[in-house]
């Protein structure tokens, strides 16, 4: 793509062909205005696609095998670790990293911070795709994925935390689709849907906050069902939901910084001046938000240790690991963010974001897998389980990229009144 753009090619960003009145056809829009041949050429030229191809060559047969031979073929069939990587990574890590949707919606639509507008759609998209793929991971993990809608309509267990997660993720996915309808409508030249969504955007945003607060928290609350199994340092029956909720705030914001940085590096041709020009300022703005959430999180984490009087546990092996998680995943990014804000250094902010994202991954994997059953034994996922996880995640990246190529997320559709 970069090559074409340097050669003077301009990807489609209007409804009608420049200088004329004929509209672009859908195919032309999907191919960004390139011919099929040119499009394939750029696919082949991109080394990242080769990596994807290798992942798929290995991953797709194994995914098919998972549905043909059953879960026992791809996992250790553990009764003690009923949840493996699919949920540990796919649900518990993906969802907090996708909290950017409701954060940005709230900032822009609710608090009227129009200065974050250029990144709002990226935030929403990051949310939508993250959730969508979390559901895909869930589908890989469920014993009977074709019964996914049972908790909604067939047999309801409304007192269960997972019931709340199911309903909220489903509703929230709908909300996020609705929030991104304007982007699609612009591209397709539809007027009515965009207008309609605009009229209910506040309702959607408030619904987004409620749903997010609850299901981000609920993912934490799921572990309160296992008081003896999650290590006490990672367990707090009063604060678990709040830990998960609060950390999802900086997780979502940091992930958004990471994604916007990647877009700036690899998809520069698709970003418009508005996006590129404001990104540094916005990154620092997001950093401020993230650092506030980080410090709150740090305080409630320590409060939980104090509340359950677990100081003694800090001196055990697990305690060292806990201290490492907090210092690497929370305190380090907090310091980095503070330095970044003080020195107005975007580079440091980006590095901080990366560390914060890694920190969240560590925390969620610690809770769901590593410290789970701490007094039994540790389980290393089956290699096929790892391959499937990588494959689904690769698909997430692929879809992410495809959408960014086309929909007006990083750029503004021309001929639109703002």
């Amino acid at each position: 793509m970069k090559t074409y753009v340097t050669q003077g090619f301009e990807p489609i960003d209007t409804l009608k062909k420049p200088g004329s009145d004929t509209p672009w056809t859908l195919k032309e829009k999907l191919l960004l205005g390139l011919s099929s041949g040119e499009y394939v050429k750029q696919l082949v030229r991109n080394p990242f696609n080769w990596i994807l191809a290798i992942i798929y060559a290995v991953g797709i047969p194994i995914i098919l095998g998972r549905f043909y031979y059953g879960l026992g073929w791809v996992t250790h069939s553990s009764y003690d670790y009923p949840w493996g990587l699919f949920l540990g990574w796919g649900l518990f890590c993906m969802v907090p990293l996708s909290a950017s949707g409701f954060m940005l919606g709230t900032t822009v639509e609710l608090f009227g911070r129009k200065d974050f507008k250029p990144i709002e759609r990226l935030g929403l998209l990051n949310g939508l795709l993250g959730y969508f793929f979390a559901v895909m991971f869930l589908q890989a993990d469920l014993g009977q994925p074709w019964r996914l809608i049972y908790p909604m309509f067939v047999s309801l267990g409304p007192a269960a935390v997972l019931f709340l997660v199911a309903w909220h993720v489903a509703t929230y996915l709908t909300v996020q689709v609705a929030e991104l309808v304007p982007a699609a409508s612009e591209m397709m030249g539809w007027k009515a849907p965009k207008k309609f969504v605009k009229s209910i955007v506040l309702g959607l945003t408030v619904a987004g906050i409620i749903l997010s607060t609850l299901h981000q928290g609920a993912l934490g609350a799921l572990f309160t069902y296992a008081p003896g199994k999650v290590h006490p340092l990672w367990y707090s029956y009063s604060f678990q939901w709040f830990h998960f909720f609060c950390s999802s705030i900086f997780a979502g914001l940091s992930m958004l910084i990471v994604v916007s940085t990647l877009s700036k590096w690899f998809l520069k041709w698709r970003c418009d001046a508005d996006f590129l020009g404001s990104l540094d300022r916005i990154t620092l703005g997001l950093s401020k938000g993230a650092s506030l959430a980080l410090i709150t999180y740090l305080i409630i984490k320590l409060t939980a240790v104090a509340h359950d009087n677990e100081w003694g546990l800090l001196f055990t092996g697990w305690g060292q690991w806990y201290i490492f998680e907090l210092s690497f995943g929370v305190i380090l990014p907090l310091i980095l963010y503070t330095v970044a804000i003080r020195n107005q250094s975007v580079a440091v902010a980006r590095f901080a974001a990366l560390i914060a994202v890694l920190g969240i991954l560590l925390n969620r994997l610690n809770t769901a897998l590593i410290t789970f059953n701490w007094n039994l034994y540790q389980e290393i996922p089956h290699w096929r389980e790892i391959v499937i996880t990588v494959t689904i995640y690769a698909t997430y990246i692929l879809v992410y990229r495809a959408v960014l190529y086309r929909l007006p997320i990083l750029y503004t559709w021309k001929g639109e009144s703002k």
Partner: protein
Amino acid sequence: MGIKKRKLLGLALMAAMVSPWSLPGPATAEVFELDSVKNLYEGVSFDHDMHIEITGEDCTACHHHTAGTAPVDPLCVTCHANSPEADDPSCKSCHAKDVFDADNMKKNWDTPLLHHRNKPGLKAAYHRNCLGCHEEIGAPTGCTDCHAMTEVGEKFYNTGKYAPEPTAAGQGGGHH
């Protein structure tokens, strides 16, 4: 200990009493078949005389408080210190064969006698009574030491003719 002490007392009492194995019923036989609960295993051929000898003619060692001799178990003593010999001191006269029969379970639960509420059925009475001593004095304790397994039993225990094909697989769960 208990058994030795009882020996003298038992002998003395025994002399003054009608000898129990002059009574009618299986107790008169020297060796008899305990086969009323046979199913998975054949019945047990039980040498009563030999056990009398081994226990030093202490009937209470097995018959708790129904042999007319003073019971050993302090729990029995609370009520049966002076109980006379029962009309039928055989195991099955007190320990129900169909212990899990609804009526029997009800009868057990409804009894005002605390220590009889949980009275074992015939099968458990045999096993509990026998195994303790057998273990203590080094007598046989393996299942088939006393009774041979029937075909029903082989099927039930998946053994003998019905043994599973040997596989390398474990019970499932965890690493294979």
